[in-house]
C-alpha cells in the first residue's frame, strides 16, 4: 500500500468508524445508566435499516430523509421494550436480563425475515456511487454525508447530556441512582428515556449505513458484536470512549481489508478487540461514567 492508498484507507475507515461510534454510544449509554448489556442492539439497527429501505422502495423517500420517521419510531420502540419487557425484571438476576435482550433480538430479526424475506437487499440512489476528491484522496459521498450526520447527532447528544436538566438527570442516574432520586429525578422515567435514546442512535446508524451496505434480516448480529467491541475498546459506559472505540474499529477494519484481506474485514476488528482486552481489560479510555 502506498502513502496515498493508506491515507485513503484510513479516511474511509474514519468515516465508517464514526457510524460505528454512534452504535456504540447507544449501547454504552444504556449500559451506563441501566447496567444492561443490550444484546439486541444490532437487531434494532437492522430494524432501522429496513424501515428506511421500505420507505425508499414504497415512496422513494431518500434514506437520509427517512431519519425523520426512524428517529421517533426508534424512541417509541425502545421506550416500549424498556417499559414492558425490561423494567418488570430489572431487579432480577443478570442472566435474566441478558436472556431478555437476546430474546428481543431474535424476535426482531425473525420478524424482519417474515416481512422482508431472507434475500440481501440494497437501495440505489443517485449518489450511491458518487465520490468526491480531496487532493489525491477520493471519498464516497454517502459515507461523507453519514459521517457528517453522525457528528451532528453525537454533538447534539453531548449538548443534551451536559447542558440540560434531562441530560444531567441521566448522568446523575448513571453515577448514583439513589442520590439522583433524592434530587427529585424520576429514575424509572430516565431509564425508559435512555433506552429510547440508545435505540434511536442504533436505528439511525442503520439508516446512515444503508446506502453503503446490503441489508438482510440477520445483519444485526454482526453489529451487536461490533457495538460490543466499540464499547469495550472505549471502556464500558463511557461515551467519549465509544467515540474513539468506533473510530479505531473503523480504521482497523479498513486497513485490514486494504491489506488485501477483504474477506477478513470483520476479523481484524475482533483481533484488535482481543489484543486490547489482553493488554488493557478496562478499555483504552476506561472510565465507567457517562
Amino acid at each position: 500500500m502506498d502513502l496515498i492508498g493508506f491515507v485513503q484507507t484510513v479516511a474511509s475507515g474514519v468515516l465508517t468508524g464514526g457510524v460505528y461510534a454512534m452504535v456504540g454510544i447507544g449501547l454504552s449509554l444504556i449500559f451506563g445508566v441501566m447496567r444492561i448489556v443490550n444484546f439486541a442492539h444490532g437487531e434494532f439497527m437492522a430494524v432501522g435499516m429496513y424501515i428506511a429501505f421500505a420507505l425508499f422502495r414504497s415512496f422513494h423517500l431518500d434514506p437520509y430523509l427517512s431519519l425523520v420517521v426512524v428517529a421517533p419510531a426508534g424512541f417509541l420502540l425502545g421506550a416500549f421494550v424498556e417499559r414492558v419487557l425490561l423494567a418488570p425484571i430489572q431487579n432480577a438476576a443478570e442472566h435474566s436480563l441478558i436472556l431478555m435482550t437476546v430474546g428481543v433480538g431474535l424476535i426482531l430479526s425473525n420478524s424482519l425475515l417474515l416481512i422482508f424475506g431472507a434475500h440481501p437487499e440494497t437501495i440505489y440512489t443517485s449518489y450511491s456511487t458518487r465520490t468526491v476528491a480531496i487532493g489525491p484522496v477520493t471519498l464516497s459521498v454517502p459515507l461523507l454525508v453519514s459521517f457528517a450526520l453522525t457528528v451532528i447527532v453525537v454533538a447534539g447528544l453531548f449538548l443534551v447530556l451536559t447542558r440540560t436538566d434531562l441530560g444531567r438527570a441521566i448522568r446523575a442516574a448513571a453515577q448514583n441512582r439513589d442520590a439522583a432520586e433524592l434530587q427529585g429525578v424520576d429514575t424509572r422515567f430516565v431509564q425508559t428515556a435512555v433506552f429510547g435514546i440508545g435505540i434511536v442512535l442504533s436505528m439511525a446508524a442503520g439508516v446512515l449505513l444503508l446506502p453503503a451496505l446490503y441489508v438482510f434480516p440477520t445483519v444485526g448480529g454482526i453489529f451487536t458484536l461490533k457495538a460490543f467491541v466499540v464499547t469495550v475498546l472505549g471502556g464500558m459506559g463511557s461515551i467519549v470512549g465509544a467515540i474513539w472505540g468506533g473510530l479505531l474499529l473503523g480504521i482497523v477494519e479498513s486497513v485490514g481489508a486494504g491489506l488485501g484481506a477483504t474477506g477478513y474485514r470483520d476479523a481484524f476488528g475482533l483481533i484488535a478487540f482481543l489484543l486490547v482486552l489482553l493488554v488493557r481489560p478496562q478499555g483504552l479510555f476506561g472510565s465507567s461514567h457517562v
Partner: protein
Amino acid sequence: MLEVRDLHAAYGDAPVLFGASLSVKEGEIVELVGSNGAGKTTLIRCVTGLLRRRRGTIEFKGDRIETHPAHEVVDRGIACVPEGRQMFPSMSVEEHLLLGSYLRRARSRRAENLSRAYELFPRLKERRRQEAATLSGGEQQMLAIARALMSEPRLLILDEPSLGLAPVVVGQVFRTIAEIRKLGMTILLVEQNVQKTLRMADRAYVLESGRVTLTGTGSELLGNDLVRKAYLAL
C-alpha cells in the same frame, strides 16, 4: 410536620425496624441517635422513599407519604443529605447544585438559590468547576448539604454528616447545621457524635435494635446515665 408511626422495615428476610415511631414539629431540630446497625439509616430511607416500609405510616404535613417514590417525597419538601454524602463522582460542584434544583418548582429560583449556596459555602464557589471526586471529605459534605438546600425543602434530613471527617471539619459541619437552623429550617439529624450535637437539639430519640427506647429533650438525654454510658463512654 413529620409523623412516623409504628414503622417496620426489612431487607429481604432480615427485619431491621420493629415499630419505630418519631415526630418532628415545624421549626424543631430533632436528633436521632443510636449505635451502628440500630436502623437509623433504614428509617431515613423509608422516610425519603428509597425503601418501602413493611408496616406503619409516615405522614408529612398531614399527608401520608409512605408509598411515594423518593422523587415525589423530595417534591413535597423533604430533602436528604444521605449517609456517605452520595456524590455524583464525575460531575462538577455546580452540576450537583443544578441537580439539587432539578424539581420544576425549584427551577424558577435556581439562580438566586445558587448564589445563596455559594454565599453560605464560599469554598464551593472556588471549586465550582471541579469534579466531586476531587473534593475533600469535608467539601463533599458541604456540597451534599448545599445540594439538598437547592430544592427549597421544608424539612432537612441529615444522616451522619460527621461520618469519616476530621475533627476540625466536623466542627465546621455542625456550625453550618446550626446556621441553617437559624434560617428557620426544620431539621432531623442522625448522629452518633452526640456530645457535640445533643445540646443543639430540641428533642432527641434513641433508636436501639429497630425500636425507639428513649426520648426527651436534648439536654435531658445528655444528662441521662444510659446515654452517657452508651454514647459518651463516660
